[in-house]
């Protein structure tokens, strides 16, 4: 196990905090193996981060996060979807994470847990998956070769990272182009194939991170570019960062615990008036109630997955809280 735990004494914002890095190495994967959630545990805990996974046993398909030590960076296609184009993890490590987006939300959310919950985030390494990289480089039966027929198409593949804190989507975001062909000079076009460090400290305190991918190659059936990227060495500051906390918590209602297996409690200490609703990922309404009447929502009978809890106040303000049922 190579979990790296830093205990650093820093004087930033007059506070001291530890760091935890999710390196994925402690899954002890052999060379060229991967975890895609077929154990039906609903995800992977690593460091102070929970990486959710949804797996369909019947079709052996998944979305969310997988863990991999695959080194095949030459085979294109979806059969090699758990491989990084670098054929190794960041800093030469053997294991890394792979994220695959849902068609519906086009994003995946991971949760900060333990001491990291509600704390700051240092940063992480990202890279292209082999599937997405080779698809953008060479094209496939569905997706286009970036640059298109002429080589001049202003194509891009963009990773956007946002954060939630207390279930509230933050206003800050970090964007990173995994491929960028937008330059007028084609010599400047690039596809990321090296692990690249992203500084996420500007996101401030968070209890979960949302990753979304967007591409210039979009048809009527959605994004053609395979919606995968790889990540490694996510480092959390295991305490709140004072001075950076922002005022995006528009509605002071506490929703906990998240993820949940049973009940999610709603603490409405300021007696806001409005409605609270729970929807599944297809938009189907599962619960609709007056906010003042809601003490908790029972998730015990719901199937595993992501749900969206929405609070709408009478003054017109509203907030969404993604809830993970495990």
């Amino acid at each position, binding site marked *: 196990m190579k979990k790296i735990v830093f205990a650093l004494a820093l004087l930033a914002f007059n506070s001291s905090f530890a760091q935890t890095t999710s390196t994925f190495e402690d899954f002890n994967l052999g060379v060229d193996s991967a975890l895609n959630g077929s154990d039906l545990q609903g995800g992977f805990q690593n460091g102070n981060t929970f990486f959710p996974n*949804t797996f369909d046993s019947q079709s052996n398909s998944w979305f969310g996060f997988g863990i991999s030590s695959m080194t095949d960076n030459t085979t294109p296609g979806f*059969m090699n979807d758990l491989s990084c184009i670098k054929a190794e993890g960041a800093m030469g490590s053997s294991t890394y994470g792979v994220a695959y987006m849902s*068609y519906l939300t086009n994003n995946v959310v991971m949760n900060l847990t333990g001491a990291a919950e509600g704390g700051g985030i240092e940063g992480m390494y990202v890279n292209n998956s082999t599937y997405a990289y080779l698809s953008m*480089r060479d094209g496939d*039966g569905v997706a286009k*070769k970036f640059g298109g027929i002429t080589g001049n198409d202003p194509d891009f593949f963009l990773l956007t990272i946002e954060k939630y804190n207390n279930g509230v989507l933050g206003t800050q975001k970090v964007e990173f182009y995994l491929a960028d062909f937008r330059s007028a000079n084609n010599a400047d076009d690039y596809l990321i194939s090296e692990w690249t460090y992203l500084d996420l400290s500007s996101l401030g305190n968070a209890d979960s991170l949302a990753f979304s991918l967007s591409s210039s190659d979009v*048809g*009527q*059936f*959605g994004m053609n570019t395979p919606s995968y990227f790889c990540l490694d060495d996510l480092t959390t500051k295991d305490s709140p960062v004072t001075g950076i906390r922002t005022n995006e918590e528009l509605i002071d209602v506490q929703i906990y615990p998240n993820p949940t297996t049973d009940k999610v409690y709603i603490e409405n200490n300021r007696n806001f008036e409005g409605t609270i609703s729970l929807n599944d990922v297809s938009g189907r309404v599962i619960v609709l109630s007056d906010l003042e009447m809601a003490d908790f929502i029972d998730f015990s009978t719901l199937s595993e997955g992501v749900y969206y809890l929405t609070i709408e106040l009478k003054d017109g303000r509203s907030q969404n809280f993604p809830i993970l049922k495990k």
Partner: protein
Amino acid sequence: MEFIQIRKAAIGLEKIVWDSTTLKSRSFASLGDFLSQESNVYVKSYGGNSLGTISVQGASASQTLLLWNGLPVQSPMLGLLDLSLIPLNFSDKVSLQVGGNSSSWGSGAIGGVIGFQNTGNFKSKFELDYNSSIGSFSSLQQDLQLKGGSKHFQSVTQVNFQKAKNDILVRPAPNVENYRQENAAFLQMGLIQSFYVKPNDKNELAIHAWLQESEKEIPPTLTQLNSEAFQKDQIKRFMASWAYKNKKHNIKVKAGHFREQQEFIDPQIHLQALNKFQTSLGEANYNFKFNTRHSIEVASTTIFTMAQSESYSEVNTQFKTAGLFAYRLTTKQTQLQLSLREEWVDKNLLAPLPYIGWQQGIGSRLVLKAKVSREFRLPTLNDLYWSPGGNPELKPEEGWSQELGLTWRQKFKGHQLKLTNSVFNRNIKNWILWAPSDLGFFWGANNIAKVWSYGLSSRLDYDFKKGKFVFNSNLSFNYTNSTYQISLDLPKIEKGDQLFYTPKYQANGNVSLKLGEWSFRYQHLLIGETLGANDLIPRYHVGNIHLAYSFKQNNFSGKIFTSINNIYNQNYRVVERRAMPGTNLLFGININLKK
């Protein structure tokens, strides 16, 4: 003489029939190529010998029924048939009935019905017909037909061999270097053996065996560096039919057994997928004529299907049986048809399918046709059982369609004019679409769409004959508005959007001249702007010419022919990111020996 027929043509619908003489005068390799040029249906072709599917009156490919000698040959897994795999020379007759007729034919006959038939000729003692052609892109086609027998027995052997490299010149875009398409080769060998037995004037028995293997490489798209994918199709179709006919009674009984498999292999992505199915079909049909005016028809059809795929959790089966009752009134000027079909699928009784068709002569030159019918299409086995995404709870697509047509004919001194105009309206609910599943990481089949289709079709035929000079021409125009009546995020659909790959406007024209031994034909096709899955596909037009010289001496006849296709060298697309061939040539010879 043709004796064994498929079921009677529906009253109230337009039907075009191409006989063996017409089919032999064409040099198209496949039924798909033929229909795209000769009719006003839309063939979605991926180019060369790649996949070709059909759309009639804005219906989907799986909503147009394809019948071989009256039995449906669509894949029960996909619901469609690749028309590029049906050699045109395997048909003695091709028919196209435009408009919904689920009552007669059952599932899938929403847009129309295309039939291709083999027929026996009991006058033939011996006939050899050999056709050979070579063309651009290293294409080679060989057809041999051997007929022989007596007035009581006939054997017909049809052999087809086709191959092509399909290395068309790809012209990707202005200022981009042209290149030759790779991984597009096609190889196909097929055989139909038919035996016809006619012991007397009242009975006829026919047996057909159709064996065919094909292998087609799947070329890269215009935005794909290369492809190594290919597909192998293997077809074994057997059928037998018996017909009895006298003045009052007409009985037809058919049985068929089809075994097919399709294997898709892509070495680049290490994918090998094998899909197999077998279908056993039985049909009995009884017509009784009370007198010259009144007749009834009672029919029953049973189809049992087994399908196997690595993407199915088990071998899936489907058992369906249907009963049909029809009444027909026929007078000199009026024809009326009232039909009702009842269908059971895996013991589930479906809603009855009525059909009311009416045809009224007005004077000697005008014929008015009208029909109202209920339509349906069963989900395909992939819709039901594909993993992930198949949905066993799917309901059939269903709705109503109406059709109104007026035909005017005029003949004078060797001239013949025919003008056909028709309008149609169709509403289908429970339209099956694959959309992101609730879990969000795969697509699933759902009855989520409603589609409203309406349009008009107009066709003018003008023929003239004087001595050795024969002139035939036709001009047709189609307007098809086929729109979703719902909005969805994925696939991205706004209410009122035209269906993908369904052109609103389509026109084609054919002119043929024959003077003695020489014949010339010009065909032109125009397709309006079409919405594809990724882009708007610009309108395009294609012109083809065909020149033939025929010769005959005693029992020996033949012709030498040449075709120039896409004579204006249009750089067009039928499916976005898929190249179509520029100007291409075909030279061929046909030899016929009769005794």
